[in-house]
């Protein structure tokens, strides 16, 4: 951090403006909070049920993102193969697609009236598995891109040394490559979890809005907004999500991602 690198005042002014854009809505939300009934709202049966679904769905989606995403990131970062640009584009397309479109695509693939649906008898519509799949699909690209970025900047020397010493490929990957990618995997997992927790569009389109199995906190907020009598709950649950997200992001960031 030399004085020379300090941004000029004009740039800082715009940066300050940018910070305001993020701070104002949060402050406004807190100002709108029904403070006197906040705790009652947090412990309302609907909120507890949606909170439980959110925890299970977001953690399961993150696990799925890590299990599927890490191998994909290794293949994309360290291999050249035919069709690689196409594969990478398809994996990252949920980043730019409206989540509703992802939901429509998932319904076409795993809905009740598909081959998959006929084989399983019900498909994944309105099941928690469907909600997990929807969240995993939108969250995995964050993990893949993060891990791929880390892999590109790791030193191949360790793997070469291990190969020279006769370590077989799988052992080499498990003992050397994977631990080297650890910071990227952890950072990617946090991003993926955050995206999965906030997921709305693909879930409501594909998995529906069933209390106790697919109704996550964001879906509960949207539902509470529909009813004039539950406006307070919508704000309260929004604040709950804000608190949880901030707490997790702040604690995990300091612990898992090394500071420069």
């Amino acid at each position, binding site marked *: 951090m030399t004085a020379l690198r300090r941004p000029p005042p004009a740039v800082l002014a715009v940066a300050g403006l940018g910070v305001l854009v993020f701070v104002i809505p949060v402050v406004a939300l807190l100002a709108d909070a029904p403070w006197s009934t906040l705790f009652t709202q947090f412990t309302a049966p609907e909120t507890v049920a949606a909170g439980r679904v959110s925890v299970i769905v977001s953690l399961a989606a993150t696990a799925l993102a890590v299990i599927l995403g890490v191998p994909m990131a290794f293949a994309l970062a360290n291999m050249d193969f035919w069709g690689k640009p196409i594969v990478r584009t398809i994996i990252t397309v949920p980043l730019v697609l409206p989540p509703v479109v992802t939901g429509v695509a998932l319904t076409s693939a795993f809905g*009740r009236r598909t081959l998959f649906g006929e084989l399983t008898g019900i498909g994944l519509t309105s099941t928690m598995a469907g909600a997990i799949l929807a969240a995993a699909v939108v969250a995995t690209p964050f993990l893949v891109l993060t891990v791929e970025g880390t892999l*590109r900047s790791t030193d191949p020397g360790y793997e070469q040394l291990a190969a020279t010493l006769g370590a077989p490929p799988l052992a080499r990957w498990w003992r050397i490559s994977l631990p080297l990618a650890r910071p990227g995997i952890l950072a990617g997992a946090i991003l993926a979890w955050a995206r999965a927790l906030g997921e709305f569009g693909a879930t409501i389109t594909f998995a529906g809005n069933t209390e106790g199995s697919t109704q996550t906190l964001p879906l509960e907020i949207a539902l509470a907004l529909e009813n004039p009598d539950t406006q307070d709950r919508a704000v309260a649950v929004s604040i709950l999500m804000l608190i949880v997200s901030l707490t997790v992001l702040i604690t995990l960031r300091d612990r898992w991602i090394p500071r420069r």
Partner: protein
Amino acid sequence: MGRTPRRSEVRTGRNTLVGCSIGLSLVLLSGAVGCSTDDGRRSIDVYAASSLADIMELVEDRYERDNPEVDLRMNLAGTNALVRQVNSGADASILVAADASFLDDLIYPTAAPPIPLATNELTLTVPVDNPAGIDGPEDLIDDDVLTARCATGVPCGDATDDYLAANGYAIGRSTEEANVRSVLTKVSAGEVDAGFVYRTDAAVTDAVIQIPLAGAPQVTVTMVQLDSERSTVDLARYLASDEVAELFEQLDFGPVGG
């Protein structure tokens, strides 16, 4: 894996910059276009309930054909959402609600008393092949049956709540939707076993079968005028005309007071 950045990577950096400035100018451009009234026509913002999607399309076509200087801009959503938007300052000229009761929540001053246009009623629909073999609302309690319904607070959701409570029925497993057309879509796509919609919604697609409900709750489609602009008054008069009443009838809506 060379340590020096390859030529393509260097170029990507600049392409991103170019892409951003193009994106930014597009945003500015569209903003500028949006500010001016396109092709000089006067636009009237009409907020209408989702269940009125088809009738409003007909109204828009006819009215714009007969009044080429006017551009009707439709905003379709659940009535409760429309009321919320108007209350928070949305610039609507006319609001057509699925049911009159929701206009009580309107805190925005109206320019004229509400006018009832037509009636509608709740009905149960199942996909055309009726996969769960539903014969009536009593079958919905089964936990293997998935029912789509409007959320409480949406007109069709409140009607559903009233109906279930008044007749002592319950739903086993349900998915709650924000407006009646989302329910219809889920039923016609066969993603649910049954769904509560209005009679007129059920009539727009061959992919669902209607199971009429005894003592089904009625709703009254009601229009309210939110400003006194000349063009708004003209449109309101048209909406309350016999011509539109006939359109309502063609689409299977019931007559007011009938």
